[in-house]
């Protein structure tokens, strides 16, 4: 029983990207195309405009990362954030808060901060996003270890296709902090986002066909040195797709969901009106 119904073609709008060396899609896409150099010195931390200045400083790293790229993706899509169901993916959640929680529990559990506790839930970032944008649509937060972006893409694509409604996808991870760094290998900050739509629009940058493939297929490798340097981050499985979106060529990508299953993505760029002018 290996018959799979053909899944519908879906459309990508508003790719967004943030890493310290590639702070924003404009610079990231140029570097991935070989048309630019990474930021030097690297950026410190994103500063999402969705949050009030005081909140922006206090926000956990994962919240700052997620809201930065989610905001950029929705702005580039020209859509209203309040209307978009959202899927947020992160392999580890906020490793800084995990380090704080476990360290405080080991030392004096009664000192645990209530704000740190409610920020420790994996869905803190998508919670702040829905609160900040007034979004009452479905929101999700998921983890799938080193396949967290691919799993988030599958979840978002399935939701978009099943309900025929555009969906926001964001993926983000941060470096391990404190003693956790002796076991959790994620380093650097990396965040990506895009909007997946069931229909083509003026803001469509690419269409894609998608399917599951069983067997140990090799993952599509990253091509640029700048992307290679970010493979230390737990969200690194997003890099080949964003490199391909930057290059703007028709490509077949294989994104592992596990050792024996992958998400196959046939990417077809759309002609951009700006590019023609």
């Amino acid at each position, binding site marked *: 029983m290996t018959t799979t119904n053909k899944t519908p073609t879906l459309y990508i709008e508003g790719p967004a990207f943030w890493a310290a060396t590639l702070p924003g899609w404009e610079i990231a896409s140029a570097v991935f195309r070989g048309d630019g150099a990474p930021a030097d010195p690297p950026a410190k931390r994103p500063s999402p405009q969705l949050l009030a200045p005081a909140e922006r400083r206090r926000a956990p790293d994962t919240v700052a990362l997620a809201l930065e790229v989610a905001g950029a993706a929705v702005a580039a899509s020209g859509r209203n954030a309040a209307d978009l169901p959202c899927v947020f993916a992160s392999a580890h959640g906020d490793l800084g808060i995990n380090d704080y929680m476990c360290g405080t529990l080991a030392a004096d559990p009664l000192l645990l901060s209530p704000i740190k506790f409610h920020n420790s*839930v994996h869905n803190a970032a998508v919670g702040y996003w829905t609160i900040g944008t007034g979004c009452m649509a479905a929101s999700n937060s998921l983890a799938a270890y080193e396949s967290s972006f691919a799993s988030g893409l599958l979840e978002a694509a399935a939701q978009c296709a099943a309900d025929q409604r555009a969906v926001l996808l964001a993926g983000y991870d941060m470096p391990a902090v404190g003693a956790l760094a002796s076991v959790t290998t994620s380093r650097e900050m990396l965040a990506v986002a895009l909007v997946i739509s069931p229909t083509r629009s003026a803001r469509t940058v690419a269409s894609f066909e998608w399917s599951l493939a069983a067997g140990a297929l090799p993952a599509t490798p990253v091509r640029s040195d700048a992307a290679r340097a970010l493979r230390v981050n737990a969200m690194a499985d997003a890099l080949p797709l964003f490199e391909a979106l930057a290059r703007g060529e028709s490509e077949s990508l294989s994104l592992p969901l596990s050792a024996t299953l992958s998400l196959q993505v046939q990417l077809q760029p759309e002609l951009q009106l700006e590019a023609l002018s």
Partner: protein
Amino acid sequence: MKISAFTATSAVGVGKTALADALAQSRSGLRANDFGASPLPTWIGRVDGLEELRLPEELAAWDCRNNRLAWLGLQADGFMEAVAAARKRYGPTRIALILGTSTSSIGETELAYTQLADGAFPADQQRPKVHTPHSLSLFVQQALGLEGPSETISTACSSSAKVFASAERLIRLGLVDAAVVGGVDTLCGSVLFGFNSLELVSPEPCRPFDAARNGISLGEAAGFALLERGRGPLELLGYGEASDAHHMSTPHPEGLGAEKALDDALARAGLAAAAIDYINMHGTASTKNDEVEGALVARRFPGTTHASSTKGFTGHTLGAAGIVEAVISLLAIETGLKPGNVNTTTLDAECGPQIKLRPARGEVRHALSNSFGFGGNNCSLVFGKGAAE
């Protein structure tokens, strides 16, 4: 979409029979907190026997309280055998695994922080796949021999309700033929001291919807269901997912996100509110949740609907609450048992006539289960009596 196998293990016991007996006899599984080195003065829903449980040799690297509870839960009600039969029927790559948890193995990470040597995890804690949220699903995937898509949903207390929605979409689109869904959460310092820091923990057994309720009782649980395409005696009829867009740890004052989830679930099921015979409410016994949810049920359902919270039986099992209460809803359809509220003596005057202290029996054609989480994350599920095959 049919539910061909399901099970739950909580403080009231291992498997469906123990759960159904406790519900029928209004027997709470809560006990005075005896968890950890310096237990807070509260009550908990603790699962017995996890300290002695040993995982089989080939799964031993996954050892931690949460994965032990997952393993205990998988053994009950012939669930592993049902999955093995499905695996034979469809092939391992055609079965998705979608599990919910709020804290996964964080209890083991907490333990590792008490064992640090030179600021690093000791050798036996050098297990990166255990100290991460996906630990639960990675473990269960190996334990069940599944090779389809797998993700861990972590939206706090709605986690293992939302797994039904994600699974339904994958099956509907033909990406898989079946899905194992569920959730597991275990007691740990993070949640006991965390909810305590928010002053949400009761010093007594929790009393959902009681006029004098004063907070939640935390619990731990594991639950699983096997979802397959087609008709069956028990079916998932609808689901609704919505966000409050209000506050990280307080529900929307008018329950707007919860009501959106309810509306979506009823619309997908094609049912009016009056068609629901039993509602398993989120009913945490926190002042605010019960006020908002009680008002929602009072304004949307006829007085004849039987509604209850089962948190007094199991405690609030957080990321496992969705699946445990889905299982209770399925048992209600299967057996006609509509549970009451335990520990509650005087219903809050703001509650409607729907909320019942005592259990009742009668035909349940359609059951609704509500799960609401931090971050304003809401999910409602509608299950129904389907056509026997």
